[in-house]
């Protein structure tokens, strides 16, 4: 019954507002009249009786408002009326409202877009069952660096650990695959049998690898990704007839994995790892490792476990030296995938956060100016019985309307922004495919808008409703009294804005200067006019087949040289600037006479430190140095003398010559570098070539040994062609030649300029984004300075009029106004510089060639900011000098 009453009251209050209000009005007035009558009866004179009754009642409107607040559904109703009123307020100043909404949309949109990248890359869990239990395992070498696992070390980790329910090794690379609908260059991974158990998945068709599939000499088997099965295997439900030719062997397709499973990234086929037997060396780091933790085992426990095993191996192994592991480490797989991208992304988030602050500051200033203009209205509402809470709520409602509209537009903008970001993002940013505007992103945007609204609304409301509002009513439209403190707040906001903008622009400046410094680095090679072609032949051990591959490459190079416009043709095992680069290893200096007869003898020689050297190992042709313009410093590069049966030769890089053979001529020395390709024949150094920045312009050149592709053939190479002809003509001609030589070998083309430009991708990404945020913040801050100064001049018109009337010249007025602006700017700049000094350390890891406190950047940015801010002051200041005292004094 009471519930029914309540519902009825609610509906009545809500739908028959007019009647309820009329009732209330009558009731209160009747009360007033009865009070008056009582007074009259008590003999009070009529005028006095009425006044006393009014005093007793305490104001008709106030009583009515108090009753209204007690009403059922009052809250709901008043929120609606707040919204209506708020909308009317916002419509009253369409210009200011549009500016505020646009500013908020820009800032919320940018923040949402950046957050969606952060969420997709860093926060979103990997798409596997209980993905937080999947770990990556690394060896830690003597220098503290992490490296992949050597086979015997992995076996010890697998057999001795007590932390993992499954642990597997994997290694991915590109091979040519034929036997499906067409030959493809496909990313395959060689994995140990527990691989799928680590990820908690099962084939949706067929079966998983068994232990016997993985044994040495077992019949080759392969698992296919869902996408590969659909596209290249015709979605055939009967796997028994499907075979793929990989590395000259026929692999039986035994299973298809669930859609979406592509680990490691972009892999389409999974093969058993050890069909050719394991590599017995503990220093050949060929495999990555992943494991699934046992229930209840923490990451720390697993770390202690693996670390203990690793140290035991280190202490007992007969192999010693820099390449032997010293320790082991376990970390969540997600961290190992995204760890490198994290610092730059967090810097981006910080930068966009600053932009958001600058934008909010502008909106806050606009709202404050509007609130000041509404002082009188607030005073009247307050006098009519509105409590302070009610007024605060009104401001909150207005801010919420602004922020939600702005946020909604911002999210729309973020849709395009995210597409743009994905297009702009460097190729090496992991997990880019999981970046999108999803539900969590929308929730984030909503929370962000609400937080912005709450901050802005409360701030404005508290400023606007502090003090005794009703006193303002007495002061009428003077608008001078309360304005002093509100202007102080406005200036403080602008100073903060300048400070934050300075930090942001300094950050952008440091990154921009780093990019310029990087571009100034001479890479050591030519970039233009080079077309590259990736070619993979089957990986084989048989020396005869290898020799035939050398012949293949030789005839390929000869035929490519015939293409019209192609001037030089070369080949290299790994292009500079490509992720991964050349492998590195230890060689030893020895002569033919010292050559030990057995492997054990070789191992013993590795103990002699003075014989050892460390270098990257490249397999190249003579044409490679010519196409890339890598200069010959001394000696010669490979030529016709260096056939497969003549003594093997090597060319070394300048820095290796300098560091390994100081004060000596390395030419003529012989080295053994057989652990890189299994060929123990000595290499005679015949030449020294220039250094190149192989790992990117911002990384120092690395000592490198180049061997001759025609003597030491390798299955996968990149052909480089220097050509004046149109790239498309060259690629189609080259494709035809490869087809002609061997139709089962697919190729992939890129220009070297693309490769080179991609290597600068992360840097460019950061500079473009933070530069964009910096410019937007600069514009917003300029608008902020201009707004506050213009407002201040406007409020001081009367004062300026008085000053001019009393004899102040226009230069005095200019100085006064500019001086006021300058003080604000300097406070902002000082705080900004201090803040930058504290904060730019966080970007130190992203800098190159400049320090985090680079005086040029700091000085330049400060000058720029002060200049622009002064300009923004100058316009209102000039307007102030034009004040006509007569008009100004009559102004009010």
């Amino acid at each position, binding site marked *: 019954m009471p519930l029914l009453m309540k519902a009825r009251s609610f509906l009545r209050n809500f739908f028959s507002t007019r009647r309820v209000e009329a009732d209330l009005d009558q009731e209160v007035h009747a009360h007033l009249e009865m009070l008056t009558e009582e007074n009259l009866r008590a003999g009070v004179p009529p005028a006095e009786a009425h006044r006393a009754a009014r005093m007793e009642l305490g104001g008709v409107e106030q*009583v009515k408002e108090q*009753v209204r607040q007690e009403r059922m559904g009052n809250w709901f109703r008043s929120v609606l009326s707040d919204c209506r009123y708020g909308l009317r307020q916002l419509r009253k100043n369409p210009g200011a409202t549009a500016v505020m909404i646009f500013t908020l949309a820009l800032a919320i949109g940018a923040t949402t877009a950046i957050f969606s990248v952060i969420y997709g890359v860093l926060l979103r869990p990997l798409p596997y069952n209980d993905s937080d239990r999947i770990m990556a395992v690394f060896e830690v070498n003597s220098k503290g660096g992490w490296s992949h696992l050597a086979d015997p070390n992995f076996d010890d980790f697998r057999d001795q650990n007590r932390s993992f329910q499954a642990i597997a090794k994997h290694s991915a690379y590109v091979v040519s695959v034929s036997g499906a609908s067409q030959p493809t260059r496909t990313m395959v991974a060689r994995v140990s049998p527990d691989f799928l158990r680590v990820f908690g998945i099962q084939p949706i068709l067929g079966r998983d690898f068994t232990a016997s599939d993985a044994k040495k000499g077992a019949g080759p088997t392969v698992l296919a990704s869902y996408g590969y099965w659909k596209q290249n295997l015709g979605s055939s439900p009967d796997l028994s007839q499907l075979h793929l030719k990989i590395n000259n062997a026929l692999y039986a397709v035994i299973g298809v994995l669930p859609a979406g499973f592509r680990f490691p990234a972009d892999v389409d086929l999974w093969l058993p790892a050890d069909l050719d037997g394991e590599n017995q060396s503990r220093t050949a780091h060929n495999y990555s490792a992943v494991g699934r933790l046992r229930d209840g085992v923490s990451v720390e426990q697993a770390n202690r476990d693996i670390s203990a095993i690793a140290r035991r191996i280190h202490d007992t192994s007969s192999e010693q030296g820099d390449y032997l592991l010293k320790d082991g480490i376990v970390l969540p797989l997600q961290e190992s995938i995204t760890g490198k991208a994290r610092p730059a992304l967090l810097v981006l988030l910080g930068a966009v956060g600053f932009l958001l602050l600058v934008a909010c500051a502008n909106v806050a200033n606009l709202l404050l100016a509007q609130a000041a203009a509404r002082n009188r209205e607030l005073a009247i509402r307050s006098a009519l019985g509105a409590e302070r809470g009610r007024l605060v709520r009104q401001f909150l409602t207005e801010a919420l309307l602004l922020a939600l509209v702005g946020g909604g537009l911002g999210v729309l903008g973020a849709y395009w922004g995210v597409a743009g970001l994905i297009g702009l993002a460097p190729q090496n940013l992991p997990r880019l495919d999981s970046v999108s505007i999803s539900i969590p992103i929308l929730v984030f945007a909503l929370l962000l808008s609400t937080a912005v609204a709450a901050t802005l609304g409360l701030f404005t409301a508290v400023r606007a409703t502090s003090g005794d509002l009703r006193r303002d009513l007495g002061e009428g439209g003077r608008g001078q009294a309360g304005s002093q403190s509100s202007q102080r707040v406005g200036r403080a906001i602008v100073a903060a804005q300048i400070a934050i903008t300075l930090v942001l622009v300094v950050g952008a400046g440091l990154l921009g200067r780093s990019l310029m410094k990087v571009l100034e680095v001479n890479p050591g090679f030519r970039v233009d006019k080079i077309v590259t072609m990736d070619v993979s032949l089957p990986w084989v051990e048989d020396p005869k087949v290898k020799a035939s591959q050398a012949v293949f490459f030789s005839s390929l190079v000869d035929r490519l040289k015939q293409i019209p416009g192609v001037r030089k043709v070369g080949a290299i095992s790994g292009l500079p600037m490509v992720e991964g680069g050349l492998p590195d290893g230890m060689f030893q200096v020895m002569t033919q006479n010292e050559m030990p007869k057995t492997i054990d003898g070789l191992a013993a020689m590795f103990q002699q430190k003075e014989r050892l050297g460390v270098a990257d190992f490249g397999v190249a042709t003579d044409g490679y140095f010519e196409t890339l313009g890598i200069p010959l410093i001394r000696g010669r590069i490979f030529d016709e003398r260096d056939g497969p049966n003549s003594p093997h030769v090597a060319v070394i890089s300048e820095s290796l010559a300098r560091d390994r053979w100081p004060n000596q001529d390395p030419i003529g020395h012989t080295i053994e570098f057989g652990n890189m390709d299994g060929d123990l024949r000595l290499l005679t150094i015949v030449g020294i070539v220039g250094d190149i920045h192989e790992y990117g312009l911002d990384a120092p050149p690395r000592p490198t040994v180049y061997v001759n592709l025609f003597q030491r053939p390798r299955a996968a190479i990149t052909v480089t062609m220097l050509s004046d002809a149109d790239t498309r003509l060259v690629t189609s001609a080259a494709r035809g030649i490869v087809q002609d030589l061997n139709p089962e070998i697919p190729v992939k083309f890129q220009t070297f300029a693309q490769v080179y430009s991609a290597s600068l991708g992360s840097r460019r990404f950061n500079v473009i984004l933070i530069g964009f945020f910096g410019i937007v913040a600069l514009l917003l801050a300029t608008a902020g300075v201009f707004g506050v100064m213009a407002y201040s001049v406007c409020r001081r018109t009367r004062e300026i009029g008085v000053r001019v009337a009393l004899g102040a010249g226009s230069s005095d007025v200019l100085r006064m106004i500019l001086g006021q602006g300058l003080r604000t700017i300097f406070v902002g700049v000082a705080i900004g510089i201090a803040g930058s000094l504290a904060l730019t350390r966080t970007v130190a890891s992203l800098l190159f060639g400049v320090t985090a406190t680079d005086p040029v950047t700091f000085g330049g940015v400060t000058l720029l900011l002060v200049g622009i801010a002064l300009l923004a002051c100058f316009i209102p200041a000039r307007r102030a000098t034009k004040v006509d005292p007569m008009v100004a004094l009559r102004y009010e």
Partner: protein
Amino acid sequence: MNSEPTSLLQGTLDLLILKSLIAGELHGLGVSHRIRQITGGTFVVKPGSLFPALHRMEEEGWISSFWGESENNRRAKYYRLSKAGRKQLEVETKRWGRVSWAIGQALEAS
């Protein structure tokens, strides 16, 4: 207009209003007079507290209202106790008994 004591003594005001209506229907001013009378002038309920309370209690279903004629033939809004209101009066009375007993105990304790 000072609403502070009312909010402190919210239950008390409700109790007094319910009690004042037990003898029959009254309009707002009548309730006010009756409370002054039955409390011996200790409580003077101002309209700013009285009307919100009356409207709230009406919405709670404890009292109902109708328009009638005052002593001086004036149209006035009258309030009368409902069944739920009588029950509420009992509840409030008991509660008040407990409170006053407890406070009395507290003050007598040394």
